[in-house]
């Protein structure tokens, strides 16, 4: 530590205070990013434990150890925790928080106190959800569909709903902070089209956060009012329409899918350019396609209700629009792939995660076209096909990129390198373990196995066992980084300012960065991704 401190112009953010309160009440965006990182890692393993139990239970057609009711509670807590307490905050609140100010050449976010407040709000929300889990759980599924959640469920719907409601405000405040920061705090010379594509995609995500999340808040408030105050809105006896609930819920939750996947796309652009040493192919198109995905994401929510009683004509329109969202997504994938052409591709662990993302995201995206077709969806909806589809996007896509980002920026965040070989091994294990887990689920869904049941016909057992076998690989692969990254914190090789030889303002400052990020506000005179790095203002260090 002392040797490092001597070399640095000023103390790193990690050395800026060692007390607990210097962390819990820090307004430094980098420290808040670490706070988020620790808390969502905790939630990741809570949700992961639930997933492990689900896969264990499904080993046998008659179920292994759970009652119907316990199984319902298990998949609900898996969904609620993974969606709202891991996936949505995952990349934006850790890497976004850490990197956005640095990437645009600012000293902090626009509203640092608000940033800290949003972490505390997140923790409060987490307490409610964990409490709901501990006192008995919720059996509604993560979607809290009315009228079941409002009139019939005997689970602890209210604390869970309050938890998610509060978590929404953390999301909104973070999105707001990012939007204002990106608009108003860019360094001199950092024009919109000089921004790294990471920033563009997080900006698009933030717009979705700010505009969609409040609708979820209202929806959950209506559940609360119906369950607690008896003010029914979706009660069919009164002429209420449960499909209205689904409209409100998916008006938020479909865009929320893009809150989860756009940040992964943000990371992809950085990884592909850094490990191909090339400017991302078609920079502007990739930037605009982020905004297009965010915008189109608001026009497709009805495809969750094709069989729920929605009008056929509305279904038709929603179906068509859902197909159109494949266009900007495909543009991105093609552009990342084209970035590799004539590039100096190096297959370090983050790059392996990125390549894994491309494979899994393409499968997930293409299977999305299947379920977007109204006719086919009648057969596939509420089967394991849908489960496999969205896990390919959210787990195959987003979680792969989350780990890619973690490995890529680990040296920047901690000043230490992780063990490269273990990183590569983990990337491969996650990719193949994932395929083994979820490919069989496509087939199961195609054959008609419905989701949310723990009993199934014996002929489905082979595929279910394969899926559980894959899940056990994933369990190991997701736990490994916890161990070796933890080890590297103390014993990892010291990383220089720019261990990857990558472009971007974050690599021009020391690792770990000083409290104020930049000694003086940088003046940007170059485009994004100026590969090959000509002026070499950076210290190049060989990757191990």
């Amino acid at each position: 530590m002392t040797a490092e401190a001597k070399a640095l112009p000023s103390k790193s953010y990690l050395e800026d205070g060692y007390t607990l309160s210097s962390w819990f009440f820090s307004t430094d965006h980098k420290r808040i990013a670490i706070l988020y990182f620790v808390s969502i890692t905790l939630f990741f393993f809570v949700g992961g434990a639930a997933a492990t139990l689900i896969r264990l239970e499904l080993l046998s057609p008659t179920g292994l150890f759970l009652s119907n009711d316990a199984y319902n509670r298990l998949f609900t807590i898996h969904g609620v925790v993974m969606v709202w307490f891991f996936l949505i905050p995952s990349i934006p609140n850790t890497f976004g928080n850490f990197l956005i100010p640095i990437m645009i050449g600012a000293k902090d976010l626009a509203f640092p106190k608000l940033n800290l407040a949003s972490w505390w709000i997140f923790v409060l929300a987490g307490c409610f959800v964990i409490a709901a889990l501990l006192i008995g759980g919720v059996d509604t599924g993560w979607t809290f569909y009315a009228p079941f959640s409002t009139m019939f469920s005997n689970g602890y719907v209210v604390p869970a709903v309050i938890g998610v409601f509060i978590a929404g405000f953390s999301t909104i405040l973070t999105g707001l902070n990012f939007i204002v920061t990106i608009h108003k705090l860019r360094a001199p010379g950092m024009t919109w089209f000089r921004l790294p594509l990471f920033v563009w995609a997080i900006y698009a995500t933030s717009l979705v956060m700010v505009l969609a999340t409040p609708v979820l808040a209202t929806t959950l408030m209506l559940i609360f009012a119906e369950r607690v105050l008896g003010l029914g809105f979706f009660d069919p006896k009164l002429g209420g329409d449960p499909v209205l609930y689904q409209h409100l819920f998916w008006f938020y939750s479909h865009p929320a899918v893009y809150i989860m996947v756009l940040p992964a796309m943000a990371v992809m652009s950085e990884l592909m350019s850094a490990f191909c040493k090339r400017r991302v192919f078609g920079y502007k198109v990739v930037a605009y396609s982020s905004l297009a995905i965010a915008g189109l994401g608001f026009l497709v929510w009805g495809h969750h209700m094709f069989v729920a009683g929605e009008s056929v004509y509305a279904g038709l329109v929603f179906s068509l629009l859902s197909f159109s969202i494949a266009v900007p997504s495909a543009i991105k994938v093609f552009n990342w792939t084209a970035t590799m052409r004539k590039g100096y591709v190096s297959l370090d662990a983050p790059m392996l995660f990125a390549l894994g993302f491309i494979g899994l995201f393409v499968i997930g995206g293409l299977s999305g076209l299947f379920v977007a077709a109204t006719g086919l969806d009648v057969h596939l909806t509420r089967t394991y096909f849908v489960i496999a589809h969205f896990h390919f996007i959210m787990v195959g896509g987003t979680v792969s990129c989350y780990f890619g980002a973690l490995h890529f920026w680990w040296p920047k965040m901690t000043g230490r390198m992780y063990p490269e070989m273990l990183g590569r091994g983990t990337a491969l294990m996650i990719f193949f373990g994932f395929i083994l887990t979820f490919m069989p689920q496509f087939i199961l869904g195609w054959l008609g196995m419905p989701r949310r049941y723990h009993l199934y016909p014996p002929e489905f057992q082979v595929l279910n066992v394969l899926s559980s076998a894959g899940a056990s690989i994933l369990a190991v692969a997701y736990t490994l980084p916890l161990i070796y990254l933890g080890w590297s914190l103390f014993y990892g090789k010291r990383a220089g300012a720019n261990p990857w030889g990558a472009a971007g303002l974050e690599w021009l400052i020391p690792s770990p960065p000083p409290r104020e990020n930049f000694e003086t506000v940088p003046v940007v005179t170059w485009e994004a991704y100026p590969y090959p790095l000509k002026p070499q203002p950076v210290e190049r260090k060989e990757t191990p």
Partner: protein
Amino acid sequence: MSDALPAVHEQYQVATQQLAADRLGLWVFLASEAMLFGAVFFSLAVYHYIHPAAMHAATDQLDLSMGAVGTAVLLSSSTTMALAVKAAGEGRRWETLVALIGTVVLGLAFEAIKVHDWFDEFGKGLYPPAGPPFPLPQPAARLFFHLYFVSTGLHAVHLAVGILLVAGLVIMQVSGRLTLPERMVTVEMVGLYWQFVDIVWIFLYPTLYLVSR
């Protein structure tokens, strides 16, 4: 509300940058709030459309004159708030203070009208989950009142927050901690929020009291 003087925070380079960021932040927040209320209005629109007769019967139960007076009060408060922001920008302390106090009074008047309405309606059995029996035969009329109480309640809570914020400005002003025009942005932010809450009512009033009449 920040307790610091209008000094520029370290992440900003100049005061105008900080001002622009504060303004944009508040508008983005209001965008978010608009979507929150938008979902309430959407639910109301759907039920107005699928149960026109029941909504008509339910609307007739509301006291239109009280609704209209309340709306006039809120519209006036929007103007006093705008006058307060204007005066604050010009550093006219007394004028700001009078306009802010006027705004608080008008806001409290609206809340008083609303609370009176609620008691009145409760007495007539229009609060479906409790109180005297619900007077209307149509089941969907209950839906209307469920939404009525949630939407007016949500609005009243927002307005109460606004009243507290403006009252806070009055206290800061009297105790001399609100230096004007330097801290005009604080008044402006509170004003934007206040006027947004008024706009919500501008739409709630016709949606609840007029459209299905």
